[in-house]
């Protein structure tokens, strides 16, 4: 085996999140560890939400893409601790969220959860903070549904978590 761990990270960057496909699993911060040993390769991942229905698919996709790149015996291990946080989304990930019309999480997760997560959320299109929440839960558990009172567009907000 000749590739270095940093190449494995590069390969994993091509695995999309099934629910927000322009983000990779690396952007999302759910890859926690990569370990190579004599028995093969162990990739450790953590779910965004307990009930995330995409986890099985992510596992299959990670295995497939690594095996296509010549790795044998790829094992995907799931851990719950430490619990995933939106703070782990990469800067590139935050940028990509906005580009796809989803307002990225605003501020640090622990503060936001304590102080209320839904004030002054900017519209991803016109940047106005004159917005209102329509529903705490959007098309997936990780998003809330908002409406911009300035440009009138509805949009998704990726909640702090």
């Amino acid at each position, binding site marked *: 085996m000749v590739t270095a761990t940093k190449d494995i990270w590069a390969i994993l960057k091509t695995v999309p999140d099934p629910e927000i496909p322009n983000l990779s699993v690396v952007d999302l911060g759910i890859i926690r560890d990569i370990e190579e040993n004599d028995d093969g390769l162990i990739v450790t991942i953590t*779910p965004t*939400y*307990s*009930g*995330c*229905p995409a986890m099985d698919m992510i596992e299959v996709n990670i295995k497939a893409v690594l095996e296509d790149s010549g790795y044998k015996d790829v094992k995907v291990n799931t*851990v*719950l*601790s*430490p*619990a*995933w946080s939106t703070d782990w989304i990469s800067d590139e990930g935050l940028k990509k969220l906005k580009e796809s019309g989803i307002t990225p999480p605003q501020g640090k997760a622990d503060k936001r*959860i304590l102080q209320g997560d839904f004030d002054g959320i900017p519209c991803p299109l016109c940047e106005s903070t004159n917005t209102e929440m*329509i*529903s*705490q*839960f*959007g*098309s*997936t*558990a990780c998003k809330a*549904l908002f409406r911009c009172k300035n440009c009138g567009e509805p949009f998704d907000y990726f*909640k702090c*978590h």
Partner: protein
Amino acid sequence: MDRSLFNYLLRLADDSLILGQRLGEWCGHGPALEIDMAMTNISLDLFGQSRSLYQYAAQIQGEGKTEDDLAFLRDSWDFYNCLLVEQPNGDFAQTVARQFFFDAYQFMLYTELKKSDNDQLAAIAAKSLKETAYHLRFSREWMKRLGDGTEESHTRLQDAVDKLWRFTAELCQMTPLDEEMIEKGIGADLNVVRKEWDKEVDKILTEARLKLPEKTVMQYGGRNGVHTEHHGFILTDMQYLQRTYPGLEW
């Protein structure tokens, strides 16, 4: 196998599974699209939590069984969920009241379990707590909106509170299993949970202009596997596929 820990995990998992199943019944029937999505999202979180707990329980059991065996192949008397979560959805007000009483309990419970000496349980609690914080915010807001809303919404929610209050004492009922789990540094002290739960419930009921029923005979049984008649119907619906086609997979 550590039977006490196994039973304790089942109890936590069963609460989430049964309530998740109940909320799932709203799918496609919510009073508005956004509420429909919110309730099914909460349902999904609860299923996810119960999966983590059942997986761990199956591991403790050590008989090679899986989360699916525990969810789909046990009978009613082997379920330890509280009676509150198995109560029918009723109208939206009844669903909201049930959700609020339970979310407040689960939020305080996970806050305590996060400190458990059992690393796996502490990890599940820490993960779930983040989700439950959003559930509580949802049900709390709807309590206020309906309770302090129109005459119709107020009446309906007050009816729901009157109807469901009898199932709330069981949430924080201390049993010998709880005593044992506290002693081992694994479980939560439900007296602490109850104190915080009371504070939250008092505050929100006051803001929502709701009153507690004066005379209530509290109902118990779920923690011992003795359920209301609704439980069997939930299992019939939920377990049908695995019972009819054993081992069926997607």
